[in-house]
């Protein structure tokens, strides 16, 4: 594949083959898999306390256990909403790339990717709709712009990778957390179980697209691509600090809470830790050489 432009896609080809096989063998029916109680016992955790956006701040210290648990519920709804919107954009983009000639080799896997993301939206969506007032709306937008050859594709898959790498750290930690409500724990486990494959695919495909297109980009395009990834990472993180979540959890002055939490060293440390592997991938592969210096 792609010998014409001398790119070694062997690793990607193997990954696609392996992931298709594993996806078929581990086909999950989200409808049968999860138990959906009529009502949730809310006197428990829905987000691991250490992952809650204001954890480590003095506001967190002031909350009693029941207020913290309430916040952990709305943070879960916020987290699931972020997933829903990311997955919605992903599905749109994947659908339009199916059977496109330049994606011939990966199309078999794109089918699984697409299918699995739809199933994720089913359980994230059902949780938000059944137990809260539906997902929080997305406020992140991208306008149509002009791209150089390969730029739009590269950015699409690179942004998906950013979104999924961050989400997956939350999933991985929470899938093992026995303090969580069983449904929340299971949702995190289930999502991680399938996302692990998306992450391997994402990394391999992003590397190939980078090698395929970036050598032909102008310096201006390179600069723009790097800036776009950097600001996307920042914006992705800022979505985790949602005033509507704080408001629903009963916190006073939700916008001030957001500003305070974003600026707090404890939450910066959390963002830094969670982003570490992603930033390392971006710098090691020359995609964003100074990724470690990006403002988070």
């Amino acid at each position: 594949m792609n010998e014409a432009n001398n790119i070694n896609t062997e690793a990607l080809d193997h990954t696609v083959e392996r992931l298709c096989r594993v996806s078929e063998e581990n086909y999950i029916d989200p409808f049968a898999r999860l138990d959906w109680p009529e009502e949730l016992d809310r006197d428990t955790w829905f987000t691991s306390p250490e992952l809650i956006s204001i954890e480590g701040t003095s506001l967190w210290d002031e909350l009693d256990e029941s207020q913290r648990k309430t916040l952990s519920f709305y943070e879960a709804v916020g987290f699931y909403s972020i997933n829903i919107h990311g997955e919605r954009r992903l599905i749109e983009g994947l659908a339009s790339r199916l059977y496109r000639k330049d994606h011939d080799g990966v199309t078999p896997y794109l089918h699984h990717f697409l299918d699995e993301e739809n199933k994720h939206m089913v359980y994230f969506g059902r949780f938000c709709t059944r137990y809260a007032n539906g997902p929080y709306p997305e406020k992140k937008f991208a306008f149509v712009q002009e791209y150089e050859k390969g730029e739009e594709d590269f950015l699409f898959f690179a942004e998906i990778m950013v979104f999924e790498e961050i989400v997956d750290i939350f999933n991985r930690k929470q899938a093992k957390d026995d303090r969580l409500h069983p449904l929340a724990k299971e949702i995190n486990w289930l999502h991680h179980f399938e996302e692990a494959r998306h992450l391997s695919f994402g990394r391999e495909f992003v590397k190939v697209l980078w090698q395929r297109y970036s050598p032909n980009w102008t310096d201006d395009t390179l600069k723009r691509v790097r800036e776009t990834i950097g600001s996307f990472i920042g914006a992705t993180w800022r979505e985790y600090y949602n005033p509507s979540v704080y408001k629903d959890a009963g916190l006073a002055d939700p916008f001030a809470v957001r500003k305070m939490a974003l600026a707090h060293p404890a939450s910066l440390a959390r963002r830094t830790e969670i982003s570490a592997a992603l930033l390392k991938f971006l710098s090691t592969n020359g995609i964003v050489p100074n990724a470690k210096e990006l403002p988070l």
Partner: protein
Amino acid sequence: MSESTREKLRAFVLEKTESAIADLTDQTHLFENGILKSIQVMDLILFVEEISGQEIDVEGLKPGAFKDIDTIMKNFCENRDEK
């Protein structure tokens, strides 16, 4: 009121922009002219919600809703404190 909504909006744009603006007016096209990047729409929406005290219905948003400061004022901040 010490600082009007409009002034807060101008200050926000000047704080967030990465381009050197010689003369930002209330009619300067914020996104078309690259004053703000589309990825910053989220921050702008949250800021407008904060200063206007009203949540913005993002599903009904038209692309031009944040064209310039005048348009933002008209769409989201009218009947609040003006000028």
